[in-house]
C-alpha cells in the first residue's frame, strides 16, 4: 500500500484519493491466497500513523491472514515523546508488526527532529521491531549530515541504514535544483530486487512502489473493479514486466530510441528512468506494440530470466530442446 507525494490535500500526483479500510483488508485477504505475492505485507506512506488505530487493524489482519513478514514505513513524527514512542511500538508489535522503515532525512528534519528518530529506534528495539532507517541524499546534503542529528547510542540500536540519491520525481522535481541531484546511478540495473505488488490510494495495482506507481501506464488493474488474482495473473503474463524485472528499464531504451524517442537526458537511477518512460503514454504504446510482435514470434513465452531473455532466439531454443 503506497501513497507517494502525499500532502495535506492528498497526493500531488493522484489528487485526493483514499482507500476505505474495508477495501484494504479485502485486498490483504485476497493477496494472502496468491502464491507469487510472497510473505511480506507492507503498509507505506504518506504517513499512515496519523491514524494509528487503523494501522493496528491492518497489521493484525495481515497477521491473521498468514503473512509472515509484516512491515511499515513512517517518518516517526509520533516518537517525539519517548513514552508515546514506547506505547505505539508496543501496540504495533502486539498487532503483528515485525519491521519498521523510518523515512527521514535532511528535508524531514525541520518537521521531525533527530530526537524523535532516536526515540523511535530505541522504542522499536525495546519491543523487538527491526528497523531500517531510509535516507536520501543530494550533493549538498549527505547521509552523514542527517545521521549526525541522531544520537550514536540510538543509531546503534538500528538494524539497517539505507541511503540513496534523491531522484527528481514528484515534489523533488519541482523543489530541488537539478544541479544538486546526483545523476550517477547505474542505469543498467534491473528491477529484480525492488519489486512489490503495490496498491495506491486510487486502488490501482502496480509491480513496484518506486515511481512506477505514479504513472497510469504501468497500472495492471484496480482492486475496486478487479479481483487481485486476476491482476496478478495479468502481471505474470506480461512480457513487458518480465523485461523490466530481469533486464531493467535500460533494456527498453533501444526499442524506444528506434522509434525516435529521446531518453538521453540525465537520470539519477533506473527508477527515475522508469518514471520518465512510463509517464508518457506514447512510450507505452510503442512498447506494447513491440511486445506483441515478440509474442507472435513465439519465443517470448519462453523468457525466464534476465540472461535468457538477453540470449538470442537460437540460444533459447537450443537450451529448451
Amino acid at each position, binding site marked *: 500500500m503506497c501513497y507517494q507525494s502525499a500532502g495535506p490535500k492528498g497526493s500531488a500526483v493522484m489528487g485526493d484519493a483514499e482507500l476505505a479500510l474495508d477495501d484494504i483488508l479485502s485486498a490483504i*485477504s485476497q493477496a*494472502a*491466497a*496468491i*502464491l*507469487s505475492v*510472497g*510473505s*511480506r505485507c507492507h503498509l507505506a506512506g504518506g504517513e499512515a500513523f496519523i491514524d494509528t488505530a487503523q494501522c493496528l487493524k491492518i497489521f493484525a489482519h495481515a*497477521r*491473521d*491472514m*498468514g*503473512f*509472515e*513478514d509484516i512491515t511499515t514505513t513512517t517518518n516517526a513524527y509520533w516518537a517525539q515523546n519517548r513514552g508515546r514512542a514506547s506505547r505505539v511500538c*508496543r501496540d504495533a*508489535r*502486539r498487532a*503483528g508488526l*515485525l519491521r519498521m522503515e523510518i523515512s527521514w532525512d535532511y528535508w524531514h528534519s525541520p518537521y521531525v527532529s533527530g530526537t524523535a528518530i532516536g526515540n523511535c529506534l530505541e522504542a522499536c528495539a*525495546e*519491543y*523487538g521491531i527491526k528497523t531500517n532507517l531510509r535516507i536520501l*541524499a543530494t*550533493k549538498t546534503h*549527505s*547521509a*552523514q549530515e542527517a*545521521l*549526525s542529528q541522531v544520537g*550514536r547510542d540510538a*543509531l*546503534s*540500536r*538500528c*538494524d*539497517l*541504514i*539505507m*541511503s540513496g*540519491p534523491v531522484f527528481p520525481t514528484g515534489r523533488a522535481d519541482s523543489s530541488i535544483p537539478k544541479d544538486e541531484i*546526483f545523476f*550517477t*546511478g*547505474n542505469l*543498467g540495473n534491473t528491477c*529484480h*530486487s525492488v*519489486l512489490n*505488488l503495490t496498491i495506491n490510494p486510487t486502488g490501482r495495482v502496480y509491480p513496484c512502489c518506486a515511481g512506477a506507481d505514479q504513472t497510469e501506464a504501468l497500472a495492471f488493474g484496480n482492486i475496486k473493479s478487479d479481483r487481485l488474482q486476476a491482476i496478478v495473473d495479468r502481471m*505474470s503474463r506480461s512480457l513487458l*514486466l*518480465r523485461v523490466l*524485472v*530481469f533486464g531493467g528499464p535500460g533494456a527498453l531504451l533501444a526499442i524506444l530510441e528506434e522509434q525516435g524517442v529521446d531518453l538521453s537526458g540525465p537520470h539519477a537511477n533506473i527508477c527515475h528512468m522508469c518514471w520518465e518512460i512510463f509517464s508518457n503514454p506514447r512510450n507505452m504504446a510503442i512498447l506494447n506494440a513491440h511486445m506483441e510482435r515478440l509474442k507472435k514470434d513465439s519465443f517470448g513465452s519462453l523468457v*525466464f*530470466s*534476465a*540472461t535468457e531473455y538477453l540470449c538470442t532466439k537460437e540460444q533459447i531454443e537450443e537450451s529448451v530442446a
Partner: protein
Amino acid sequence: MKNWIPHFSHVLGALKSTTKRGTGRNPAPLPKYFRSIVVLGNLHASIDGDTYANQLSRWIERFNAFSRLQFGFDHGQNPLLAASRTILFMGDDVLSATNEQLALCSLVRRMGFASTVRIPVAEALARPGAFSELLAPESAVSTMLLDSRTHAAVDSPSELKMLVSECVRAGKALSLTGTISYWLDSGLLADQGVNGDGFSLGVISGQNDTRPTVSTFDPCASRFQVFISESGGLFPCQGLVGTSFGQIGHITAQNPNIFSVTDWAELDGWAKHGPSTDGATTHPPGVLPVICRRHRKYLERREAAPQRV
C-alpha cells in the same frame, strides 16, 4: 529432467498438504521460503575429493532446476517468485580464491541470482590487488559487502576511501557492515561518490542482542534462507547452522530434491508462527536474535532427551 517429475510430484503433494497460509485457499509450497542462499564455506576447501567451489557450483545448478520446477517458471508460472533471489558469499579468504569467486558469480547471474561478496576490511586493505580483481569490468559480482566488524576504530582512512571509491567506479552496489561509530568516523558516509550511488549499512551494536520477545508471533519466514556451512551442510537459518537436528541436506547429495528434511510440518510451523522455545526464558550469549538462541537451546535439550516409544 523428465525422470525427476514423478519424484517432484510426490514431494509437492506432500508439501501442499501441510502448507496453507492462514485462511487463504492457495497452497504455498514451503520451498518458497528458500529462494536465497548464504554460503559460509571457503571456496578452496575440499569436500569429498573436490573443491568446495566445484561442489557448490553443481549444487546451485540442482537448486536452480529444483526451483524452476517447483514454481513452474519454465511454463510461465509465478515469474515474480524468480525475482529477489540472492546469493551471499560469506566464506573466509575470498581474496585467495578470486577466480573461483568470479566463476561462481558469473554462473549464478546466468540463473537470475544477484550475488553479494563479503570481504573483511582488513583483508581488502592487506590485498588491494586481489580486491580489484573482483571489480574487473567483466565481473558478475552484484554487491560488495565491506565488513568492519573486527575493527574498533578506523586505522587507514585514506586506503579505505580508495577501496570504496574503486567499488563505486566499478558500478558495484555498496553494502557495509560494522558499528555505527566506525562508519561515521570513516567519513565515507559524507563522500560524494558513496552518496551518489547509495549504500546500505548493516549496523552491529557490538553487544549481545537482548531484545525481548514480547509476542508469540515471531515467524521465521524472514530469517529463512539456505545456509551452506563450511562442511557443505544445508540449514534453514543461521541459528541452526552446524547442528545435526537442523540439517536439511548436503551439497554433495545427488537427489534432485535438494532438501532431505523429513519433517516439513515443523519447519512450516516455524516459518509461519515462529519457533517453539517450550517456555524457555534463558538463552546463551550471542549476536543472533534472542528467540533463535532460545530455540536452539530448546532443540539441543530435546535432542539430548531420551526418546519416548
